[in-house]
């Protein structure tokens, strides 16, 4: 049983944090024995985006965002952001027409809250864990109304 089909974890033989997975980009063999930082972004023909900062394991930074009551979803790249505030700002731009007073995510008085589904399939409240931990585990985002949250936690 392959519990890590996408090679996200370092112990997986498919894990290659800094080098492309396909042979089109060169035959570099990385034994993973040293830490290296590649200060540029690598775009595959498939459109995958690698974060330029060392330590990030995820290969694909885009996650789907839906908002309850709104039929159309968006996609955001969590690797584009340095923290929750800029992510909230982008979501505000994307979904602003869906609320009268703005989303005001992460504000106590807001009627909206941001939840996410992590790599284990568990829905959690966004903002609880440090940002670096969040972007490595987030798989899906959802904007819900605070009074309507019926997700199993």
């Amino acid at each position: 049983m392959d519990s890590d089909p996408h090679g996200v974890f370092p112990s997986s033989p498919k894990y290659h944090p800094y080098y492309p997975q396909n042979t089109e980009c060169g035959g570099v063999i990385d034994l993973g024995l040293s830490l290296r930082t590649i200060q540029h972004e690598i775009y595959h023909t498939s459109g995958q985006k690698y974060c330029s900062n060392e330590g990030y394991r995820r290969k694909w930074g885009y996650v789907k965002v839906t908002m309850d009551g709104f039929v159309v979803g968006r996609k955001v790249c969590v690797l584009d952001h340095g923290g929750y505030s800029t992510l909230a700002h982008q979501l505000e731009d994307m979904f602003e027409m869906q609320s009268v007073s703005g989303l005001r995510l992460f504000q106590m008085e807001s009627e909206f809250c941001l939840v996410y589904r992590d790599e284990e399939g568990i829905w959690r409240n966004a903002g609880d864990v440090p940002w670096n931990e969040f972007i490595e585990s987030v798989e899906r985002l959802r904007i819900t109304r605070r009074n309507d949250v019926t997700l199993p936690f």
Partner: protein
Amino acid sequence: MKSSSSQSRYVKVYKEGNHIGRKVNLFAFNNYESLVAALSHMFDTTIRLDGDGNSSVSRNHHTLKYLDKDGYWMVAGDISWNNFLSRAQRLSINSPRNP
């Protein structure tokens, strides 16, 4: 079943209010801009990509969304063009007031 080296990928396109749809070959375009230009001409309207979040500016135009592999309607333009090619199953042109 077409092979992966097929030179065409036709998807249905419907415009809000029109019962008759069209078909476009996504592989005939290199980027979102050329696709939007062709659709704007095909449906005689102005379609604006909402990728940069300027929703207030686009209220006089139509927006483009696509049906992805998971069955969700998504705003076109957020992901790279190459990823869009593999994920888009159907297109829809809507007014911003009725996305």
